[in-house]
């Protein structure tokens, strides 16, 4: 009886340690600083206005932490991804695709694997999800 109690206690301790480690890792990831890879941090002297495609892109690229970056890139895409898929020009598509790639990377860094994979499938850089048609 006492041996099985010890085993149960040990198991509970092990599980508790695991979750404590995971949650502190998640907190660490959320607070980790963010540096964009494809986008560049905006120059204060040439910063575009918020509300414009460029201004909102720069605002997201200028996020301090991964958590903030995830929120800002999500907001950028909500505001600027074309509702019916009709882009205005190449600049528009480049910024929307750039935002998706930055957000995908942020999701992976935050451990949000399913969210990252959802964007990867959507971008489909190898054109394997749409019959392989030329992109």
């Amino acid at each position, binding site marked *: 009886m006492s041996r099985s109690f010890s085993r149960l206690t040990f198991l509970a301790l092990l599980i508790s340690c695991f979750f404590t480690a995971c949650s502190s890792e998640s907190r660490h990831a959320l607070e980790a600083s963010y540096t964009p890879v494809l986008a560049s941090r905006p120059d204060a002297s040439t910063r575009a206005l918020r509300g414009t495609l460029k201004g909102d892109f720069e605002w997201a690229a200028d996020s301090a932490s991964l958590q903030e970056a995830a929120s800002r890139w999500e907001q950028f895409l909500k505001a600027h991804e074309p509702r019916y898929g009709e882009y*205005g020009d190449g600049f528009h598509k480049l910024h929307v695709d750039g935002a998706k790639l930055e957000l995908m990377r942020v999701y992976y860094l935050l451990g949000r694997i399913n969210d990252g994979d959802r964007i990867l499938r959507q971008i489909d850089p190898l054109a394997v999800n749409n019959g392989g048609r030329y992109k």
Partner: protein
Amino acid sequence: MATKGTVVIDPGHGGTANMGGSDANHAVSPSGVLEKNMTLNIAKLVEDALKAAEPDLTVILTRSTDTNLTLEQRANVARDNHADLFLSIHFNGFNGAARGVEAWVRPKAEGNVNFDDDKSFAERVQKAVFAAINARDPNTKDRGVKEMKLGVLTDANLGNTAAHHPCRACLLEIEFIDVPAVDQLLNTGANATAVCDEIAVAIKDAILAELP
């Protein structure tokens, strides 16, 4: 009465308000030159070059002043004038480092009834402009012709149907103007006027080669 055909040149953006899918401006050069003004400048140079080379050609700009039109209105200029060719001119921008010349056509899968002809037209224009810029600055990149669902290239708005599709159309992104070297090449350098003229001549030659 012009008999050589009709070409519509669409200088991207314009004005101060976003209009039906067309933002007033996108890219800005490091020296502060706005994409909307550069597209208008190149469009006017192309218009002049075409009229000088082929007086019997009808050349129409979707805008000749600093005003914005919706994407539908821009394409409708081609439809209403029974255009043979429609070229939307833009400049690009991203992270201050990306370079290159690219053109876009509407994908076949998105209902482009003129896909093969559009792609051929786009390739001719993109190659010509890339060659013109590459002759002045070998750091440019050939980004080729790509496909995208673009509002300004919608067949119905251009006057194309499955049965009758006379208007070939593409969108050209000339270069990334947020790169200092490109700003110098096209706006602030000693040869900027000459370079813009050369780009316009390259577009003019591509357009004339595309017409029967």
